[in-house]
């Protein structure tokens, strides 16, 4: 299946404000430095920052290296989203460039999903990266301090 560009113009594979990072599952050790390329990405809600204690964001997944907004239909497909369905504790660690430090850990949980008609709150280009017929997965990321 080819991922069609929403316009005849060439589009970037990434959303402008997406934040790359690494997903870690329950009891999975977080290394002292990032190993390998990022394993995930999220799109923070405009106006929020990873410097906040808690942020809402969309979960982004690659399809042929083109990043799309994950819909509820796709939650079974990825290990972090499947795990969270079973109340597993998953951690997102943004790449070092975001906060100038590693590892800054954020506990991820499901927040209320976003209807396609409401996706514009995440930016004008988001709707073109999301399914028009399914709710978009929204995550709540809470910064973990002092071990929790």
């Amino acid at each position, binding site marked *: 299946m080819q991922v069609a560009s929403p316009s005849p113009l060439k589009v970037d594979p990434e959303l402008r404000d997406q934040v790359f990072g690494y997903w870690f599952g329950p*009891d999975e050790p977080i290394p002292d430095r990032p190993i390998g390329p990022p394993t*995930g990405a999220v799109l923070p809600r405009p106006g929020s920052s990873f410097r906040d204690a808690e942020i809402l964001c969309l979960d982004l997944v690659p*399809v042929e290296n083109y990043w799309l907004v994950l819909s509820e*239909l*796709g939650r*079974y497909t*990825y290990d972090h989203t499947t795990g969270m369905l*079973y109340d597993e504790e998953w951690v997102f660690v943004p790449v070092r460039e975001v906060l100038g430090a590693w590892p800054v850990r954020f506990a991820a949980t499901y927040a209320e999903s976003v209807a396609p008609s409401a996706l514009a709150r995440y930016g004008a280009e988001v709707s073109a990266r999301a399914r028009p*017929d399914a709710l978009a997965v929204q995550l709540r990321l809470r910064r973990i301090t002092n071990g929790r």
Partner: protein
Amino acid sequence: MADSWSTKLAQSWLASPGACLAMDAKLAQLMAVHWGRRGAGATAQLLLPMRCETTAASLIELGKQPDAAMSCTLLLVMLGELLLCAEHGGILRDDVMVERFAGGIVERWLAAEALRRLRNAACHPAAVVTSVKGDVGIVSFANFLITNFKRESWARGLRTQPGLLANRAVSLFALRMVNSIGWWQADHWDVRFAGLKPPGNPRAVS
């Protein structure tokens, strides 16, 4: 480690004998159409070369053996093929079945295509990168994961060490895909998994 075989298998619908029996009954019903069988001749025992119920039992036993990951992977990809192809009859060799299953939903396409490539890789262990064209072989599977499943970092190693296909990480990946496809098909076929609740809502919301 929480991400162990037993934990993930227990989370899947395959761990439920009732779910497996319900899926077997539906698969038999679908295959009966292709074989022209009805009534007493349309049972899972007569029509299914592999059944969810017996496969799940094998997966539980095999999973206890640390060196049996490849056996688990093989069972899972064949069961995945049955789940994907039973409705229309056919082989998961090419991507027609995948497109049919996906129905334009990219998330479903990803799971089914990953399973198809893993099936092709597992069933053609002697395929080598220099002689295989297209989407058959371990390298093709690895490349697909690298571009679509970033967390499966073990896929990079597969490109140079095909023996890693026998690792537990691969069978865990296959289990996740079969679990996903099974839930989607249960929803599509209106198969009820008694006592089980789908994790989250698999239906599109209009």
